């Protein structure tokens, strides 16, 4: 076991899978020689060769579209999008091909592709470098979407994603790339896609979050102390959602809150609330609460604090919901 950051765990998983499966290829803008702008793929080109770990022209449609072709011809491509805010020019390939080729070809051409992209705010970045675009992937049938919040899950989920025969979008919470270290097994292991993790059991209120925001939520819960018995769930997989775990929890607690970085309207919170309605309506003791960004464009850093929610705000909302009669 080694102590790794989330970034280190991703690098380790990529390295291991490149080693074990000669069909795995890793590529993207600056992902080869220098190892990516965040150095997530550092050292991989040197070790695995520049045919399997390589730099691309700036062309997201080609990066993602070529993955379709590589997958059709037997590879397991892992393209990187430099920042999730730059996925738009390649979204066509994701929505109309990567998500659909298996179904279109009635199983002849499955798409074992993992699209990696750093996402999320709070890093004092320029425009388009702070987006949380979960909805744009979770709404498209045929895709999976996972988001690790810990180094352990980062490696396990990525390994599972690479071995999955369906396309997986892998969001990397860049704010916590190097925030802390955790013991991560050297050997291969998988964290199953589609299973949430109960971070902390509780009986008064269920809170669901993921990615960097999970840690803000944890902080809020810690700050609130023992007065509140909160069940905290790390959703981990956004699509397909682990509805069951969430519903079970709400049946127990009767109160539901979701915390995310994305804007409110049609954020993942809206889907979770709908599912909680469908699965635990008569257990609800209060209206579900969404703690999210408002429906505005992510501001530049001097205004970003008005957009992204923090532990203080989360704690405030938890108190309100817990005390609601």
């Amino acid at each position, binding site marked *: 076991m080694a102590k790794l950051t989330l970034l280190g765990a991703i690098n380790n998983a990529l390295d291991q899978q490149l080693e074990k499966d000669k069909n795995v290829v890793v590529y993207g803008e600056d992902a080869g020689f220098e190892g990516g702008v965040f150095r997530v793929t550092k050292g991989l080109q040197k070790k695995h060769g520049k045919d399997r770990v390589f730099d691309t022209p700036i062309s997201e*449609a080609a990066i993602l579209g070529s993955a379709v*072709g590589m997958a059709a011809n037997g590879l397991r491509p892992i393209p990187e999008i430099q920042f999730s805010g730059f996925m738009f020019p390649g979204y066509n390939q994701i929505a109309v091909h990567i998500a659909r080729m298996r179904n279109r070809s009635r199983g002849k051409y499955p798409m074992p592709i993992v699209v990696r992209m750093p996402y999320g705010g709070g890093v004092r970045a320029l425009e388009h470098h702070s987006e949380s675009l979960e909805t744009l992937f979770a709404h498209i049938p045929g895709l999976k979407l996972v988001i690790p919040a810990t180094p352990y899950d980062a490696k396990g989920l990525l390994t599972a994603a690479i071995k999955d025969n369906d396309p997986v979008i892998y969001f990397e919470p860049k704010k916590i790339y190097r925030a802390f270290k955790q013991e991560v097994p050297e050997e291969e292991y998988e964290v199953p896609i589609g299973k949430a993790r109960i971070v902390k059991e509780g009986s008064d209120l269920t809170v669901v979050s993921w990615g960097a925001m999970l840690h803000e939520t944890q902080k809020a819960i810690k700050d609130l102390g023992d007065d509140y018995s909160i069940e905290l769930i790390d959703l981990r997989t956004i699509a397909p959602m682990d509805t069951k775990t969430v519903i079970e929890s709400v049946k127990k607690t009767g109160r539901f809150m979701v915390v995310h970085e994305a804007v409110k309207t049609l954020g993942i919170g809206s889907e979770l609330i709908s599912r909680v309605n469908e699965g635990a309506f008569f257990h609800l003791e209060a209206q579900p609460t969404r703690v999210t960004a408002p429906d505005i464009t992510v501001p530049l850093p001097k205004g970003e604090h008005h957009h992204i929610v923090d532990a203080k705000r989360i704690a405030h909302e938890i108190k309100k919901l817990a005390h609601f009669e």
Partner: protein
Amino acid sequence: MLFDHYDPLKKEMFGVLDKDGKITNKDFEPDIDDDTLVHMYKTMVLARIADVKALQYQRQGRMLTFAPVQGQEACQIGPMAASAKSDWLVPAFREAAAMLYKGVSLKQAYLYWFGNERGSRYDDDVNVMPINVPIGSQVNHAAGIAYAAKLKKSGEAVITYIGDGGTSHGEFHEGVNFGAVYSVPMVTIIQNNQYAISTPRELATKAKTLAQKASSYGIPGIQVDGNDVLAMYEATKVALERAKNGDGPTLIEAVTYRLGPHTTSDDPSIYRKETEVEEWREKDPITRFKKYLSNRKLWNKDKEEKLQEETKKFVTNTFKEVEKTGQYGVDDVYDYNYETMPDDLKAQKEAYLAYLKESEGE
């Protein structure tokens, strides 16, 4: 090398066959065995008849709207005949002739235009990608398939098609460029059939030829008479050799014409004159090739009559078979979206099946 002789910037177009099926360009006449020549011809005729019939079925409401291939058979059969079985075809949506040559069955082709995804599940050893509707995106798929071929040293090359209108698309640009950067074994054939739906070729781009776009990617480009099946064969063969030698992609502009409507929902009389169509009908690629074969004593009237009759029967019977399949079942709709169906989707499927049962009487 062939490509050095025809400079698209000077509008030099490559051809070997004239309207009467005579060879005008001995230097570049391809060397094709007789059986292959006849097979090429037969497939062109099959594609034509399947097309004419499908138009008819469609007008009767028995098939969906579809994209007829009439007039473009040469730029599809020539390249496919020049390719190996293991080489890939990455079509756009108007490549029925090419697909049939590469081993897609007529039944599959028809099933697709009948509105059934099973028509895109070709046999396992057929290296053809499904029909690709979003313009240009297939070029990136071709680049990826070729990248994999190169990495695996499989010896495969990839041929992809795009229309004249499609060359304006960003996906075309990125795909050809991507392939060129890694010198992958890939040949991009632009079927310049003069129109993108109603929009004439001149509105796609101010470039005088589409072949000259090759220089943007540092690869060879050539303009070819797209109604000359031998020229298309030869240009593709040389391009495939380059590809397999590691010399990278080639861009071929096939100058041709769509004799039919864009799709069955289209009324070409709005945007083009019948005289223009007539001019191109004179250059019909099948007629030209038939003359060539007759000149070479490989074809005659009797053979033609027999072929026409047999093919028509085959096409009619195939369509009848396809028509019998009708609407398809719930499993087909739900079961191919993922390898293993996620729980929530399973629940949706069960709920739907339950509804179907409950509502039977309603």
